[in-house]
């Protein structure tokens, strides 16, 4: 885990600096003179060798200091925390829709394999995976926020107004649910594996479905 984090930090650090752009210019704007850029370089240490900069960055990171943003001069940790509630809300709506769509679709597809419903769901799943989420987002906003004004046209107003997260969560979920249901038609085991990592409740639901189907089949065969 630590090794993975180390390489992630190294990779993102290198991406930022080896892109060929000049961070001082990104801060000061394109009209700044070379003298101004030199002053910024000196202030932030951009003129030090790359490995020195990385070392300093890691040193601060392991001491809990994520530094300050070059652009806004505000602490990075604060910036992340400030945006966390909105991200969390969209993520939760996303998980909700993903399960609300994916599980029933997956189960029906699995239980009634090769039925018409199963094939229709497969088509739906493939569309869901193929449709780019930003396009889907625009379609939903246009249809369900503009033409038929049910949802707000984007924005966020805190956790007391969860309706802002519905459409974004739905768009996120469609891609995920589609993958989910396709995976489920390949066999119970994969669902069990994924769901068990999500919640024991769904594990129980699926175990019931599995056992019920097995039982009814054995009954049909006149066994037990």
């Amino acid at each position, binding site marked *: 885990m630590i090794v993975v984090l180390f390489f992630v930090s190294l990779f993102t650090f290198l991406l930022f600096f080896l*892109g*060929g*752009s*000049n961070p001082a*210019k*990104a*801060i*000061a*704007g*394109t*009209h*700044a*003179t*070379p*003298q*101004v*850029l030199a*002053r*910024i370089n*000196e*202030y932030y240490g951009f003129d030090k060798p790359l490995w020195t900069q990385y070392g300093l960055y890691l040193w601060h990171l392991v001491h809990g200091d994520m530094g300050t943003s070059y*652009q*806004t*001069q*505000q602490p990075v940790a604060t*910036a992340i925390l*400030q*945006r966390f509630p*909105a991200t969390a809300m969209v993520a939760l709506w996303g998980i909700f829709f993903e399960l609300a769509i994916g599980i029933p679709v997956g189960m029906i597809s699995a239980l009634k394999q090769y039925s*018409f419903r199963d*094939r*229709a769901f497969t*088509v*739906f799943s493939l*569309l869901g995976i193929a449709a780019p989420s930003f396009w889907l987002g*625009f*379609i939903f*906003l*246009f*249809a369900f*926020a*503009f*033409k038929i*004004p049910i949802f707000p*046209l*984007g*924005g*966020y107003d805190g956790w007391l107004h969860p309706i802002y997260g519905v459409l974004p969560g739905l768009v996120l979920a469609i891609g995920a649910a589609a993958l989910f249901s396709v995976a489920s038609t390949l066999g119970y085991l994969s669902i069990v594996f994924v769901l068990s990592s999500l919640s024991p409740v769904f594990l129980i639901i699926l175990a019931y479905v599995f056992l019920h189907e097995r039982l009814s089949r054995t009954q049909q065969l006149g066994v037990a």
Partner: protein
Amino acid sequence: MKTRRIVLALVALAALAALALALTACGSSTSTSSSPGSSAPKSGGTLRVTFQGEPTGLDPAIAWETESWTIERLTYQTFLTYASKPGAAGSQLVPDLATEVPTAANGGISNGGTVFTFHLKPNIKFAPPINTAVTAADFKWSFERMMKMPLAPATFFYTDIVGAQAYMDGKAEHISGFKVVDPQTVQITLKKPNVAFLYAMTMPFTSVMSKAWCAKVGKQISRKPLGTGPYIITSWIPGQEITAVRNPNFSSQGVRGEQWVDKMDFILSVNPEMALLKLERGEVDVLGDGIPPADYLRTKDSPQWGKYVVSAPQIAWAYLFMNVLAKPFDNVKVRQAINYAIDAAKIQKVLAGQTQQLNQIFPRGLPGYQAGKQFYTYDPAKAKQLLAEAGYPNGFKTTYYTDNVDPQPRIAQLIQNDLAAVGIQASIKLMDRATYDTFATLKKSHCGLGWGYWWQDFTDPSDWIGPLFTNPVNGGQNCSFYENPRVTALYNASNSQLDPAKRIQMFQQMEDIIMQDAPTVPLYQPIVNGMHSPDTGGFYLHPGYIFDFQYYWKTNGQ
């Protein structure tokens, strides 16, 4: 049976696709719009503005983007500003916190253009909770604070002040050339004459700030601004919203007394297409990013919404630069040939409505612009002839560099076609914007032919000629590395020319010489296509600031 299932599946698929198309094909809007209200200004209400980005910060010493400046102007004031009018009238200097614009006639500019005296208006107070009176000492403190900040990007406008460089280098306690003559008077002395210095004093970098407030909020000053302006920023939720309310301490100021709306809401992180939909639904009053290019023609031609579209040329220009140090662009005939080869009119057609053709260096709105002036026409035959005279009868191979942000790639293809028509085989090299911005300025890039874009720092032709066509340095903005002693001599002389009309004439002479040397091909001037809601009154686009929010009102008082 199997075939039937496949058919059913295909039908379902077609139905889904048709549904999607039907939803997207409906183009008309559904909101009700009230008829435009009366033209008299009305107090009260909330102005709602959308922005896709957000200010990186509101510290006037550092911030340098449209979003920051338009919001900063609500809170911070400087000695001078521009008239709040559209068009050429909007590039006139008017006093903001000063009693008058310094001129040679009123003694404000003296000693041959090296000494500038500013008289502070009486009864100026900082906003609550500070409430103290502003004095000349506050201006000195704010200015020295700005010059000392390592991140301040614009110190180079002010390094000609006596003692400024020593102060920045830590060799002096104060800037000796920035003097507090008395509590209401500031006197600034420059090392050499520079009449354009007045323009540098309009920029937000010279705003007056409260020492007490900066001490109180410390590093948060970038998020918690406080000045003397008509509005106070009361909250800033990052990525979401900035709110401003009327400053009760402002109404004592004379000329800029307009504070119509009670409150302003800047809604951040709104996609420009969504912003347009929100405006059509009545949720937004001003589009901070303008009308998205893809929707412009449709909106402008709409009988319901067309009347709320306001367009104005921006004081900026897009151009091609040619590096006079890189063969074959070191030959003036080659550069002139390329000027004749480019069909700029075709670019305007492709960018329908977003640009206006420009055939000179100075764009509309900048003093020095001459209506109807055209240095080169579209003449491929003449281009070929000039190339032959230069020794390239069969053209040559080269590379055209630009960034990958739309519409630059599309323009690159048009340029490539125009050059091919006269025998120049140009391959296109795209790079991301930040990389290109640095690449084009470096000598080692050997960037012979590239894309250039420049917007005003202040509304004076010295801001065009100086950075772009004089004194080339590695890493500077003069990407053609062009220098002509006649131009440089005229430029230096213009700094001490106190007669404004004569001074503008000198810049036009410089333009004549530069266009004769042809290190650049002017392409176009961008147009801002703004839009406001039916309930917004007094809306106009300022040539420099773009928006002037404190002058807009709500016709319904809401």
